[in-house]
């Protein structure tokens, strides 16, 4: 199953993928493009990845979540331009009880953000764009840190 897509994400498909008769608790996290970041108005966020590495790394995070928390797990990340109010990432976990589902869901998003080779490029209302990738100088010369 591909963990990367260039088409809008579907939360109901994520839920269906991890629903099990014996699982009574499901937790889901959606990352959504928001209008403002550090006082600059954002109009969209563009995502790019090292596709092969990102697929493999997200797969490893999912396997780790299954082993560590005993959950069924799902993750998918958008690539390309993601407009305001659209989702850039979905992670979800189901378990017999809610505690494991919540823990696994947090683990999934934290580890994917930390490890998967996916970068975002902010698109601002003034027409400027900048990659958030830790390089010393962005388009306008201001130092920016990844986060």
């Amino acid at each position, binding site marked *: 199953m591909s963990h990367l897509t260039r088409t809008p994400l579907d939360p109901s498909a994520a839920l269906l993928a991890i629903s099990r008769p014996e699982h009574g608790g499901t937790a889901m996290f959606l990352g959504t493009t928001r209008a403002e970041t550090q006082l600059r108005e954002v109009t969209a966020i563009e995502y790019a990845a090292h596709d*092969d590495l990102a697929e493999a790394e997200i797969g490893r995070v999912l396997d780790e979540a299954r082993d560590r928390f005993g959950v069924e797990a799902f993750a998918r990340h958008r690539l390309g331009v993601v407009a305001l109010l659209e989702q850039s990432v979905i992670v979800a976990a189901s378990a017999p009880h809610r505690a494991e589902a919540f823990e696994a869901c947090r683990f999934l998003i934290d580890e*994917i953000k930390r490890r998967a*080779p996916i970068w975002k490029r902010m698109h601002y209302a003034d027409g400027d764009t900048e990659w958030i990738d830790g390089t010393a100088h962005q388009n306008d010369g201001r130092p920016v840190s*990844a986060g």
Partner: protein
Amino acid sequence: MPEEITVMVRLFASMKDAAGADRVELKLAAGTPAGAVWGHLPEAVQELGLPRATRFAINQQWTLPGAVLRHGDEVALILPVSGG
């Protein structure tokens, strides 16, 4: 004369834009480690600086900066990530 190897460097995000391409072919001395590739990239890429947290991959597998490149390898510079 040291033996020369050819490697393909994959570039992403700011480095891709600075290079104007998502990959750059380099001819390097045999024994060059992955971590030394940056010093051979176009000047426009080097001007970005190399973040301390940059990771490296050879042929789609994570590796350490000291890993020695072989002829025909594809090496990727993975800048600090920001997905999600």
